């Protein structure tokens, strides 16, 4: 009963959020100074065209139509499940997104799992050993990474591994000059290593820092002290109490970090010319490809919201105080 109510509430929340996001995204796009004709057709080409041709193009890019009308038309289609046709790729948005999303997801999932696991381990270790060498190392790493922009790290890796050492490709998600059917899974992995690695490196510091904070709070709790007084070893204390208590907040963090990984992927994909959703978003934005950009926006919002929702639900599963409906702290 309670769960049903919770889910209904979340669904309504999600619906409202998506609506709000779509309106803001659309408003921003309309307000953007990019002239779709200039951007996509080019000044010279436009100059050599007849007014009829230009008018046709304007129609195609939606220039001149009142924004509200355009938005309503888009919304109507979107609700029916029709995301429209990408103006840049001249393909169904669904198709474009399917390909890009698959690329991006591959990247993001690797980065998400890596940063989650490593971040958790490092954070827990540092927190349990507060003030000791390992803590200092982890903290130093986190500070260094979080004060360095992700795209800069990406370029650094690109230079080191792609240009100097030449052991990893400098970009794209598949080898150049190979037919799509000839691309193996290993090729994909090979091309995803560098971007995924970059993305993880930056993700780790965030997760580790927060996990460490939580772990320190837990270590200062009375129950940890009591466990010590009961003669439990450091490992037992961690296994019995530390892990158990840090798990729920860590999970929340982990799912909430989806948004950060997503944001990071836009930059990293750009640097590595990795044809993912992030890159598509950038070109859609610069090229005024309204249907594509709107669809990407909606999907990212859904992903992020979904992550947070899962985090909330998991909390209830892990924490008995919520699961058994007791007093919520």
């Amino acid at each position: 009963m309670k769960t049903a109510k919770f889910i209904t509430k979340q669904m309504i929340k999600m619906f409202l959020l998506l609506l709000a996001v779509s309106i803001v995204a659309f408003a921003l796009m309309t307000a953007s100074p990019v002239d779709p004709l200039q951007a996509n057709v080019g000044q010279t080409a436009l100059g050599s065209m007849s007014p009829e041709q230009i008018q046709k193009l304007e129609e195609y890019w939606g220039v001149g139509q009142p924004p509200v009308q355009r938005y309503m038309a888009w919304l109507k289609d979107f609700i029916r499940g029709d995301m429209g046709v990408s103006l840049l790729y001249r393909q169904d948005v669904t198709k474009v997104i399917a390909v890009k999303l698959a690329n991006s997801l591959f990247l993001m999932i690797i980065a998400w799992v890596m940063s989650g696991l490593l971040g958790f381990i490092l954070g827990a270790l540092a927190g349990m050993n507060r003030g000791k060498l390992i803590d200092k190392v982890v903290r130093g790493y986190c500070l260094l990474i979080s004060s360095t922009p992700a795209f800069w790290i990406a370029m650094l890796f690109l230079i080191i591994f792609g240009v100097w050492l030449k052991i990893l490709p400098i970009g794209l998600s598949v080898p150049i000059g190979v037919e799509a059917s000839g691309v193996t899974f290993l090729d994909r992995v090979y091309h995803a290593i560098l971007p995924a690695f970059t993305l993880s490196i930056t993700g780790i510091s965030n997760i580790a820092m927060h996990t460490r904070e939580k772990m320190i709070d837990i270590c200062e709790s009375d129950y940890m002290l009591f466990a010590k007084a009961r003669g439990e070893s450091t490992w037992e204390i961690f296994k019995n109490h530390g892990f158990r208590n840090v798990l729920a907040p860590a999970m929340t963090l982990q799912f909430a970090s989806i948004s950060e990984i997503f944001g990071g992927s836009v930059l990293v994909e750009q640097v590595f010319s990795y044809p993912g959703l992030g890159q598509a978003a950038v070109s859609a934005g610069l090229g005024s490809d309204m249907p594509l950009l709107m669809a990407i926006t909606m999907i990212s919002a859904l992903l992020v919201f979904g992550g947070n929702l899962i985090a909330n639900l998991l909390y209830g599963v892990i924490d008995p105080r919520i699961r058994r409906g007791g007093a919520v702290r």
Partner: protein
Amino acid sequence: MERKKILEIKNMNISFCQYQKGMRQEELPVIRDLSLSVHEGEMVAVVGSSGSGKSLLAHGVMGILPYNASMGGEILYRGEPLTEKRIRKLRGKEIVMVPQSTSYLDPLMKVGTQICKGKKDLVRQKKLDQIFSRYSLAKEVQEQYPFELSGGMTRRVMISTAMIENPRLVIADEPTPGLHQKAAKSAMEHFRELADMGAGVLIITHDLELALETADRVLVFYAGYTLEDAKTEDFCKEETLRHPYTKALWRAIPKNGFQYIDGVQPYVKDMPSGCPFAPRCSRCSEKCHGEIPYREVNGGYVRCVYDS
């Protein structure tokens, strides 16, 4: 019959190191001079007002003081110094602590598993069942989480963490706060049982009357010092008590007149030199401002220039 001494604490002192403004460090002595002993089968209560730092006594013996605290004096367990290495081996086995509040229980671990420290083998399970029936806790409670317990149940669960071991020394830190009269009394009785089974029990409490009902000996703790160490019988009448503060406590008991004395305990930072009780003592004289020895008088101890 001469009973063996389980625990002996000689001149224990515990202080905190605090950073003042800037980099100046300040020592904050919370326990200044505390001596006591606990014998096999004996229940000793340390009575002091709340917030006087007596919990640190338990933490000091268990070796779980916070990192900015330092401890001096001597602790002997069964005749030998209780070094850090030794307490590490013994705590949770021979020497157990019963904590003061639910916050000492892991909120995410089921009660049964927690009492067994996560290792629930058959032997322990059987013992746990016995303990539970002895404390009239339903078996289902084992599957519950700490937040689902009532105050009285939490008490019994915490005592169970001691019972599951085979303790020779039990140190209970404020075992009765927030319990109504009946529950508090039965909690104390459970400790009495532990003592009757042969363990030494040290209770740290603010409730003198409750302590007098069950303990064998009562120590009065005041402003970091043990002022008096008296047998429970000594509390029958005022004359057998030694220290003016103890007498004042005695008079504050309802059936003895409900008389409170004025004033409060001096704060750690502005302690009087000499007797800590001097500012409130009616018999205070010149010699009370010097060093006051802790002396044996009539089978008990007192920290006062007068014998009684």
